């Protein structure tokens, strides 16, 4: 116990904290500028100087640690004078252009001068001049306003880990500049903007279009992009979002955001948003009324169900939609239509992998708290770059490394390359051997404990010699051994699994090996998730084999609960999975499809095949925000409200349920309401007036969400396992080793998952389009040399099913024969080239063996975002 006295007030502390923290905890305010709770201590601005008895000099409260018996004074006349003096220094070279500065109204300097500062200036000389820098498309720098607190630099380097900016020059010339010069070459998280106390680093989006006090509303909601589920605050003026900012202390992201979360909101106000329902008449989509459109959907679905049976209708749900939307959708499919044919793009990896892991370790095995990653001592990353797929989770890995934890990666992970990774980079198609080698070695060191007999019986015979691993994988023996040592000696290890491994040949066997590793090192598993509500959609039962609460369809005892709640008899066999639906459509057993907030024609591999399949349908309904590739081939298109325009909940990858709040109003209907309308029209009425009503039903029907209310969620109490009953693991394990793909081609195609994009929404956001305006083929410098191409050249990539001409981007951080292309840009998606086979266990596509032909093509002309129809608002 430590007792300190600040301004005659005795404060008792459990452990030493800074004088500033102690004072603030006791309600004593001390002005600060360079201090920021999320950043390392600095002590530069000197505004927090206080008097401490027995210390000859004034002390900075933000750096001084409390000690027992310390006596501090913060409000003496001398201190008032010091504060005046410091603020005067900060103003002598400051342009005092508050009337013009976007920061005015929320500027810490302005507020402090108002409270403590001098009233007149004594500086008669010329002020320092530095022109405002508008060289960057997103971030504007005004270094005359900079007070050199270095909060931005400490954020960029010490938290974000991008190390893109620094203080340049010294003394009075000190200013902040990107290492890359005027333009930033960084991750564009914008976290520097968040921490700048003045108007020196700001966003160019909506520049000069609002003042902080003119915001009519400020709404806390959840980011619409990835499965991390960051809390965001959306600020609104005139029913338009002007800014998205993070909040310190929020769960998961605690004051941080990534580029998508911060700058990717403009799709909401994009002028391409669908506004009226459309019906295909004489081959063209024409505007109609809601009544007519719903009537048409009702009639066609009814006809087809009548004629071909319930199982001829299929539904694709959306990981972008809320739990409520998805719950209502699956209920519609199961109750109104009478089929389990409801699935989603979670089937491309997340769903199968999660189910596989849960079968072994129990439901919720992947529901681990993201902030725990930074506290672990070993992080093992397999199958993707967490810093681009789930950026805020990626920061946790960086933080772990900074605290001295070891980062192990299978293959090279670009976003972790400055965090001393121990990378084992096996030759193509040898991951399985490597994983077997790791399991073998860990078994030797740890011995099987016998606590999980089914898993142990599956791995007891795995034995690969170190020599074979080294030889086949072409890795260094030392590297392998130090990897094993780190894994086996870890006390709090974490395993992070990405889609690349789930979508590779023999994925289920690889997952078995990873589960074995996890078991042997007693770790926790995190599954990367690309979409905001991928987990929620599964928990809501938008899977052909799972009912809400992730109860298997086939178990009659479990099924009965839902039958009672919904007053129906449910089919006793699972429905069609996503890929089975496509197959069914192609060969005629599926005649109608209802797609909610998804774009399968673009988002699934072998797009041409999907197009053919969907073209074969008698009836296709698409409910979306935009005229997507899929919507273009629909018979009826229904405009939906976006994430910002509705209430509801998302469940993130930690399985934390969080509240989405309506930010702006727009005429239209939520997805769940449209579906309820259709259902009502088909004779099964759903009794919901609000998203909360839907959730009330969820909490009755789903054993996992039992008794959970919006109030619990608002209070942040909806953490796994909620109040519900998770299922135990230990199920029988089946897996498939794949066909043992080998290196038969020279170049291979892989999916690029860029930081600045995510499917259909990001390409409708002008800021993200400016950051990454077009599709590229990311190639290694070796490949570039072999093809004799340089940046700016184009190559044509051809597979058996298609070809694309793309400008090349030479990635120095990478040296393989893989060519990476993203799936974000219209007409340029990598999925149009990708054939796949299905993993028989996971039911997800394997896409790691796509052999391609490459040739140099015509020189590429840079796309101008200004004239781009996708971008224009």
């Amino acid at each position, binding site marked *: 116990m430590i007792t300190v006295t600040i301004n005659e007030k005795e404060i008792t502390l459990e452990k030493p904290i800074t004088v500033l923290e102690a004072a603030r905890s006791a309600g004593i305010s001390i002005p600060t500028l360079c201090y920021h709770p999320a950043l390392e201590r600095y*002590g530069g601005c000197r505004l927090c100087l206080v008097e401490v008895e027995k210390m000859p000099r004034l002390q900075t409260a933000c750096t001084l640690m409390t000690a027992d018996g310390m006596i501090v004074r913060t409000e003496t006349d001398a201190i008032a004078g010091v504060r005046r003096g*410091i603020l005067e220094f900060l103003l*002598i070279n400051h342009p005092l252009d508050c009337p013009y500065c976007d920061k005015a109204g929320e500027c810490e300097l302005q507020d402090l001068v108002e409270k403590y500062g001098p009233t007149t200036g004594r500086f008669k000389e010329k002020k320092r001049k530095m022109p405002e820098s508008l060289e960057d498309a997103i971030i504007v720098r005004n270094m005359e306003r900079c007070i050199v607190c270095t909060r931005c630099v400490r954020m960029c380097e010490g938290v974000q880990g991008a190390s893109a900016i620094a203080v340049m020059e010294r003394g009075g010339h000190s200013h902040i500049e990107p290492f890359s010069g005027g333009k930033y070459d960084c991750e564009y998280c914008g976290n520097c903007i968040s921490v700048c106390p003045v108007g020196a680093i700001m966003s160019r989006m909506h520049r000069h279009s609002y003042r902080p006090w003119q915001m009519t509303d400020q709404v806390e909601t959840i980011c619409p992009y990835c499965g991390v589920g960051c809390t965001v605050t959306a600020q609104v003026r005139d029913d338009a979002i002007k800014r998205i900012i993070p909040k310190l202390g929020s769960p998961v992201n605690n004051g941080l955001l990534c580029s998508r979360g911060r700058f990717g909101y403009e799709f909401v106000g994009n002028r391409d948003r669908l506004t009226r329902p459309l019906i295909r008449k004489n081959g063209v989509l024409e505007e109609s009324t809601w009544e007519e459109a719903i009537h048409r959907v009702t009639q066609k679905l009814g006809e087809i169900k009548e004629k071909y049976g319930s199982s001829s209708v299929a539904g694709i749900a959306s990981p972008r939609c809320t739990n409520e939307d998805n719950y209502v959708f699956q209920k519609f499919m199961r109750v109104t239509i009478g089929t389990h044919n409801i699935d989603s793009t979670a089937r491309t990896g997340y769903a199968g992998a999660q189910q596989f892991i849960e079968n072994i370790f129990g439901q919720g095995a992947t529901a681990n708290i993201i902030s725990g990653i930074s506290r672990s001592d070993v992080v093992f990353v397999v199958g993707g770059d967490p810093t681009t797929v789930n950026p805020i989770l990626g920061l946790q890995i960086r933080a772990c490394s900074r605290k001295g934890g070891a980062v192990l990666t299978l293959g090279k992970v670009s976003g972790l390359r400055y965090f001393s990774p121990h990378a084992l980079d096996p030759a193509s198609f040898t991951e399985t051997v490597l994983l077997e080698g790791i399991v073998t070695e860990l078994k030797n060191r740890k011995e099987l404990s016998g606590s999980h007999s089914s898993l142990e019986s599956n791995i007891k015979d795995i034995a690969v010699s170190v020599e074979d691993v080294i030889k086949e994988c072409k890795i260094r023996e030392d590297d392998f051994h130090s990897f094993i040592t780190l894994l086996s000696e870890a006390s709090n290890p974490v395993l992070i699994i990405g889609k690349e491994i789930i979508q590779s040949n023999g994925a289920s066997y690889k997952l078995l090996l990873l589960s074995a590793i996890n078991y042997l090192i007693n770790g926790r598993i995190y599954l990367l998730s690309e979409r905001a509500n991928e987990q929620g959609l599964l928990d809501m039962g938008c899977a052909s084999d799972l009912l809400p609460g992730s109860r298997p369809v086939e178990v009659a005892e479990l099924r009965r609960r839902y039958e009672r709640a919904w007053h129906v008899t449910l089919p006793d066999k699972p429905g069609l999975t996503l890929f089975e639906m496509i197959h069914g459509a192609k060969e005629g057993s599926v005649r109608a499809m209802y797609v909610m907030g998804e774009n399968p024609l673009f988002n699934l591999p072998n797009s041409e095949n999907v197009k053919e399949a969907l073209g074969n349908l008698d009836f296709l309904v698409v409910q979306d925000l935009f005229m997507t590739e899929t919507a273009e081939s629909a018979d009826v298109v229904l405009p939906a409200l976006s994430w910002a325009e509705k209430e509801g909940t998302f469940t993130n990858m930690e399985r934390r349920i969080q509240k989405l709040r309506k930010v702006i109003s727009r005429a239209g209907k939520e997805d769940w309401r449209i579906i309820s309308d259709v259902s009502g029209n088909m004779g099964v009425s759903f009794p919901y007036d609000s998203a909360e009503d839907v959730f009330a039903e969820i909490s009755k029907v789903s054993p996992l969400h039992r008794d959970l209310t919006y109030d619990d969620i608002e209070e942040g109490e909806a953490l796994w396992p909620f109040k519900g009953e998770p299922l135990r693991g230990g199920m029988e394990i089946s897996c498939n080793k794949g066909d043992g793909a080998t290196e038969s081609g020279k170049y291979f195609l892989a999916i690029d998952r860029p930081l600045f994009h995510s499917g259909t929404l990001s390409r409708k956001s002008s800021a993200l389009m400016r950051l990454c305006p077009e599709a590229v083929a990311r190639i290694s410098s070796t490949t570039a040399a072999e093809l004799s191409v340089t940046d700016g050249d184009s190559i044509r990539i051809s597979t058996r099913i298609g070809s694309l001409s793309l400008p090349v981007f030479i990635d120095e951080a990478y040296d393989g024969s893989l060519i990476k292309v993203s799936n974000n840009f219209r007409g340029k998606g990598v999925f149009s080239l990708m054939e796949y086979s299905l993993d028989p266990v996971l039911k997800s596509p394997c896409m790691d063996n796509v052999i391609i032909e490459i040739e140099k093509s015509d020189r590429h002309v840079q796309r101008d975002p200004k004239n781009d129809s996708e971008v224009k608002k």
Partner: protein
Amino acid sequence: MEKVLLKNIENTNSADITEYQKIGGYASIAKALEKERKDIIEEVKKAGLRGRGGAGFPAAMKWTFASGDPKFPKYLVCNADEGEPGTFKDRPILEKNPHLLIEGMVISGYALNAEYGFIYLRGEYPDAKHILERAIAQAYDRNFLGDDIAGKGIVFHLSVHQGAGAYICGEETALIESLEGDRGQPRIKPPFPVNVGVWSKPTIVNNVETLSNLPYIIEIGGEAYSKIGSPECPGPKLYCVSGHIEKPGVYELPMGTSLREIIYTHCGGIKGGKQLKAVIPGGISTPVLPPDKIDCPMDFVNMPKHGSMLGSGAVIVMDETVCLVKVCYRALKFFEHESCGKCTPCREGTGWLRSILERIEHGEGQEGDIDLLLSVSSNILGKTFCPLGDGAASVVQNFIKHFRPEFEGHITAKTCAVEG
């Protein structure tokens, strides 16, 4: 007094190891290695050796802190940044007697159980770099550096790291930042370098001259050493004298020799028989003294009693022809240029002081400028992150304190009475 630090430097080959050994050099290593580590620290304590870098911190105390820290490895850093204007006392050691420093570092490294040493060398001493590197190579050859020093299994490696020309990098924590490859800016203390220094490991930073005293302390013993010079801070001391003086140069004298004796006895008095006007006794950051204050003994204890500080022992002598407003202005130009920019008062205040002084110096002074100077400097003094800013403020305050009429004259006459 027998020369200790500058012994034999008139010899043109003094930097060569053979010459150095000829006069008994490197003998103290063997003697030191026979002692226990803690006994060497005890000798240094008995010797009363205080740091010669400016602050006069007791060397044994710093060493005891570092030795007490259980973390390994430990690093020994020699501060050879010698950036304080007027200071050139370390230079003759670096250029003429490098083996003395190396020997001192090997002994210190052994005492402190540090296996790596760095010499952080002023960027503007390119010759010293070559000389030191050659000397280090020779010491490796003769097994005074390496993995098995003097066949006793003692490990000590030494290398030279050259600074890039920033005064602040002489401050020990900024030096460490710079050594690690970061921007040269001071760090928060505590933790002190003795616990968290280079690469977060215990680190001892000592001045060139401080470390160069080690061989002699080992040779004659702490007790005998403590009899040299001032009883409170004994030992030989290098005074580097510049300015209007007959014989400028570096003088090795017992600690506590008075300014008067240094100027008039050893340096031959004021150049051309002119009148002494002012002395800066310990480098530009130490308070200027008028001629009536030069009888004080030049040591760490007595100088503060006389209104100044020993600092680096860099005596800058100014005669009657000097305009002190100009000197003050030039000093502030230096501080403004060298401010690292970390803290507000120094970053903004030094430039402001400089610009006011510039106006006064150029005959554009205004009424109230002197009060403004005093007020701005008192807003700096005691509020900065490191002593650099304090130094700047105290220069202004002390010049005005002792020579206010000269400043007033500039403002009222709009010109300089001394230089015209």
